C-alpha cells in the first residue's frame, strides 16, 4: 500500500467560485507533504474536505486504500485524521487538559476524570518534546504553546494523519525551528503530515514532496529536494517572483511621529509592558520595530493608535501632541493602522467586503450625505480596491468577509489602510499569512508609500522582512528599546542576540 490518503478529483464549489476544481492529492505514509498555493487557491478548503467540514460535490477520498465518506470531524477522527486549523479552535478559559480531552472525556460515576488524561498528555508531551504544562489555562500561554496544545489534541486522539494549516504564520523563528523538529520526529514515528505554508524556506527544510494549487486547480506535485524555490514559486503564481526587493536609499525628511519616553502599564500583570521607549519616524523612511513576539510591541502600537492608554510620556504627530486624542481623532489627524489581529480588530467578519473597506471612512463626505450611506460610492470604492490589490473572493464587493480566505482578508485590510493616504502608516505584520506574490506586492507598496513621502512604522517578527524592507531598525526586548541599527550594516546574527536579550546597546 503506497498511499495512506488519496483525494481524487475533488471538486468543491462555493457561491460564485469553484474553491477546488478537480484536485488530486496523494499522501505517502511517513512523508511530510507540503501544499502550496496563492491566497484563496483552495488549500484550507481541500483540507476541510479531508477533515469532514465540507462535503465535496465530486471526487472520492481513499484512506489506507479504501474509499471512505467523511461527513464530519468525528468521522475524520475515526480514520485517524487530525487537523490544526489556520485559526486555532481552543476554549480560552479552559485548561490545557480540558481542551485536549474535550469530546473524549473519561468519566467515573458521572464525574470528569483527568488523572489518566494528564498522564497520557505528559507522556506524549515528553516523547515529542512539546513542553506543555497540562494544568495551565489557555488564556495564559503563548501562541506557540497553544499550537502545541492543538498538536497534542491530535496525538491524544491517536491521529496518524496530521494536517497543519499555516502553522508557522503566528510563530517566532525559534518556535518555527522547534515545530519543524517536532514534525520530523512525528514522521519518524510513522505519522504522515500535510503541511500548508506560504514560506518556501520551510518547505525546503522539512517537506519531501510538494503539491501546488492555483485558483482552485491542481497544477502538479514535485519532489522538494530536486526543485528550486524559484521554480515552486513560479508554479504557484504562474509567473516569476522576485525575492529581492530593489529600493533606493531612503531620503528622510521632517519628523512625523515622535514617541517620547512612553510607558504602558499592564494592570493585570501589575508591571510595565512598555518602559520608557523613545523614537522618531520621519517622512520618507521605513522604521522597523523588531523583536520576539510578546516583548511589548503590541502594547506600544496600541498606545500609539489610541486603543490602549499610555501611563507616561508623550506622542507628537506632525508637531501636535496627540497623547490624549481618541482613536477617531488620531485617525483623522493622519494615522492608518494595519492591525496585528485581523479577526479581532481589522475586520467586521459579518459585514460584506465593501462595508469593511469603509470602516474608518464611512462618515466622510464621500460616503455619506446627511447621515445616509451612499451605496453607489461605496461600491465604486470597493470595486476599485479589489481591482488594484487583487483581492479574490466568491462574490466581489458583496462577499461576506467571513467567507474569504485568510490571505485575502489580510489584503482587504492592507488595501483599506494604504488607500487612506495618511502621513503615518503603521503596519503590524502586514504580510502574515500572505503568499509570496502578495508579499512581494505589499513590500513594493510599503516602499512606494515611503517614496511618496509617507512615514512608515513597520512591526515584524520575520527577520527577512526586517532586513529587506526597513531603512532603520529598533529592537524591543522586555518592553524596552535595546538598540537601533542600520540594516545595511548589521548582521542577522547580531540582531538575534539583541532580540534574545543577551546583548544591549548603552544609550
Amino acid at each position, binding site marked *: 500500500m503506497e498511499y495512506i490518503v488519496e483525494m481524487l478529483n475533488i471538486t468543491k464549489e462555493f457561491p460564485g467560485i469553484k474553491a477546488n476544481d478537480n484536485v488530486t492529492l496523494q499522501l505517502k505514509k511517513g512523508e511530510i507533504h507540503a501544499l502550496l498555493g496563492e491566497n484563496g487557491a483552495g488549500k484550507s478548503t481541500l483540507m476541510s474536505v479531508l477533515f469532514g467540514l465540507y462535503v465535496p460535490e465530486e471526487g472520492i477520498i481513499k484512506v489506507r486504500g479504501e474509499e471512505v465518506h467523511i461527513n464530519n470531524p468525528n468521522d475524520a477522527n475515526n480514520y485517524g485524521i487530525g487537523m490544526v486549523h489556520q485559526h486555532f479552535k481552543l476554549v480560552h478559559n479552559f485548561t490545557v487538559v480540558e481542551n485536549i480531552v474535550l469530546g473524549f472525556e473519561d468519566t467515573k460515576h458521572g464525574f470528569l476524570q483527568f488523572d489518566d488524561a494528564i498522564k497520557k498528555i505528559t507522556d506524549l508531551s515528553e516523547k515529542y518534546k512539546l513542553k506543555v504544562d497540562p494544568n495551565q489555562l489557555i488564556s495564559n500561554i503563548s501562541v506557540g504553546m497553544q499550537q502545541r496544545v492543538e498538536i497534542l489534541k491530535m496525538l491524544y486522539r491517536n491521529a496518524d494523519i496530521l494536517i497543519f494549516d499555516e502553522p508557522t504564520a503566528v510563530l517566532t523563528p525559534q518556535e518555527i525551528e522547534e515545530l519543524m523538529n517536532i514534525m520530523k520526529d512525528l514522521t519518524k514515528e510513522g505519522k504522515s503530515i500535510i503541511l500548508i505554508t506560504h514560506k518556501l524556506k520551510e518547505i525546503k527544510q522539512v517537506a519531501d514532496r510538494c503539491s501546488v494549487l492555483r485558483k482552485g486547480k491542481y497544477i502538479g506535485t514535485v519532489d522538494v529536494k530536486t526543485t528550486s524555490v524559484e521554480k515552486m514559486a513560479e508554479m504557484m503564481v504562474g509567473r516569476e517572483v522576485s525575492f529581492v526587493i530593489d529600493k533606493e536609499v531612503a531620503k528622510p525628511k521632517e519628523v512625523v511621529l515622535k514617541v517620547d519616553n512612553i510607558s504602558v502599564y499592564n494592570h493585570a500583570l501589575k508591571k510595565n509592558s512598555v518602559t520608557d521607549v523613545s523614537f522618531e519616524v520621519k517622512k520618507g523612511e521605513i522604521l522597523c520595530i523588531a523583536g520576539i513576539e510578546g516583548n511589548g510591541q503590541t502594547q506600544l502600537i496600541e498606545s500609539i493608535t489610541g486603543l490602549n492608554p499610555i501611563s507616561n510620556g508623550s506622542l507628537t504627530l506632525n508637531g501636535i501632541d496627540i497623547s490624549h486624542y*481618541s482613536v477617531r*481623532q488620531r*485617525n483623522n489627524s493622519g494615522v492608518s493602522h494595519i492591525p496585528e489581529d485581523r479577526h*479581532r*480588530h481589522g475586520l467586521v467578519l*459579518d459585514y460584506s467586503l465593501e462595508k469593511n473597506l469603509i*470602516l474608518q471612512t464611512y462618515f466622510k463626505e464621500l460616503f455619506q450625505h446627511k*447621515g445616509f*450611506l451612499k451605496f453607489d460610492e461605496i461600491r465604486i470604492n470597493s470595486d476599485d480596491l479589489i481591482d488594484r490589490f487583487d483581492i479574490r473572493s466568491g462574490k466581489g464587493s458583496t462577499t461576506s468577509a467571513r467567507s474569504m480566505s485568510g490571505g485575502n482578508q489580510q489584503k482587504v485590510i492592507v488595501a483599506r489602510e494604504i488607500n487612506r493616504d495618511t502621513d503615518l502608516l503603521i503596519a503590524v505584520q502586514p504580510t502574515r499569512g500572505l503568499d509570496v506574490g502578495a508579499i512581494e506586492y505589499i513590500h513594493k507598496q510599503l516602499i512606494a508609500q515611503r517614496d511618496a513621502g509617507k512615514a512608515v512604522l513597520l512591526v515584524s517578527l520575520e527577520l527577512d522582512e526586517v532586513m529587506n524592507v526597513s531603512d532603520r531598525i529598533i529592537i524591543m526586548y522586555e518592553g524596552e528599546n535595546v538598540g537601533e541599527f542600520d540594516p545595511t550594516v548589521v548582521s542577522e546574527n547580531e540582531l538575534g542576540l539583541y532580540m534574545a536579550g543577551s546583548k544591549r546597546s548603552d544609550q
Partner: protein
Amino acid sequence: MWEKVKNYLVANALNLNIGFFLFLLVFIIPQFFANNDSILLVIRGLIVATGGGYIFYKLLLFRKNNPNFKPSESKLLVDVAGSIIAILTGLLFGLILMLIVNPGQAFGGFFVILQGGFRNIKSFGDMIYFSVPIILTGLSVAFAFRTGLFNIGATGQLTMGAYAAVYIGVKWGVIGEFSPFLHWLVAILGAIVAGALWGAIPGLLKAYRNVNEVVSSIMLNYVAMYLNTMLIVKYIYNRDFARALAPKSTAVTPLMNLHYLLPNSSVSGGIVVAIVVVIILHIILNKTTFGYELKAVGFNRDASKYAGMNSKRNIVYAMVISGAVAGLAGGLMYLVDGKFLQPLNVLIPEGFTGIAISLLGLSSPFGVLLAGLFYGSLKQGGFYLQLYSFTPEIIDIIIAVIIYASALGLFLQKFVIRAMKKREMLIDQKPEEAVEGSDA
C-alpha cells in the same frame, strides 16, 4: 438632484402607481361607501388582488434579473426557511397534543388554529389589533440585539410608557379640547420618552460601568412594576374599580379609517404607527451611518473601537431607541377604550413575548412585523379554539415549541440547505444534458 428624482420616478413608476392606488383604496374610497357591504367586498378583493399581483410581479422580475439564482446560496431564504420549519414543528406538536387531550375534536380544532385571524373580517381586525404591541416589543428587542445587547427589560420600558401615556391621557385633557389628535400625539410622545429614559438606565450602566444589561434590565422590570402600582394609586386611581382612570376620549388611539375596511373589529391606527416604526428602524439599520456603527458594535466591539467608533455612546443610543419603541408599545396598548392599567404587581407579558417574536423574525424589522402578525393570528385561533372545548393555552405551548425550534435554527438550516441543494441538482441536470448534446 432633479435628475436622480426623475430617474427614480421613471424606474419605479409601477411601484409608485400601485402604492398610490393602494392608498386610495384603503383610506379614501371606503369613506364614500361607509355602510355598503358589497362595495367593501369588492374593494378588499381588489386590494388582495393588487397586493398579490405585485408580489408575483416582483418575483418574476427577480427571476429575470437573476437567472442563475440558487436558493441555497441566499442567506435570507435559508434563514426564512428555518423559521418556517420551526413554525411547522410547533404546529405539529400542537396537533399531537390536541390528539392526546381530545382526539375527537382535534382536527377541527387544529383547522381553527390554522385559520387563525383569517377566519373572518372581525377576527382579521382583532388579529392586527392584538399584534401591534407584540410587533413593537419585538422591534425593541430586535433593535437592541443588532447592537449586541440583550434587552430583556422591554416589559419595564413598556410599563413606564403605558403609565406616562395614561397619565397624560387622564390629566392633560386641556390639550384635547384644543385638538383631539394633538392630545393623543402628546400622550404617545410621553410614552416614547418614558420608555426611552427607562431604557437609557441599563444602557448607561453597561456603557460606563460595564454592568451586564441583562441583569440590570431584569431588575428594572420589577422597579417599573412596583413604581407603576404606586403611581397609579397616588395620581390616577379609580377607587370604585380598583384600577387606573380611563384616558379621555381625545387621547384614545384614532381609528384612521381602518374600521371601514375591517368593520366590527377592534382594529385601530396602532398598526399604522407600528408599520411606520418598522420602516424607520429598517432605514436606520440599513441605510444610515448610525446603523452602520450600531451593527459594527454589535458584530465586533473590538473592531468598532479600532475604527474609532464611540461604542459607549452607541450602546446608550441603542438602548434609548429600544426603550422608546417598547414605551410606544405600552402607550398604544393602553390608549384604548375599555382597557385599563391595573395596580396589580404583575409583569406585563407582552414584553417577554417580544423576545420570542424578535427571534422568530430573525431580528429584522420586516421579519418582526410578519412574526408579530403571525403571533396575533395564532392568538385569534386560540380564542376561537374554545368553540371546540380546548383551552387557549394550547397556543402558548405551540408558541413555546416554535421558539425552541427556532433556537435550534442552525441545525434546521443545515437541513434546509441540503434539501434545497437536492432540488437544484435535479433541476440542473436537464439543461446540462441538453448542452452536452448540442456540443457533440
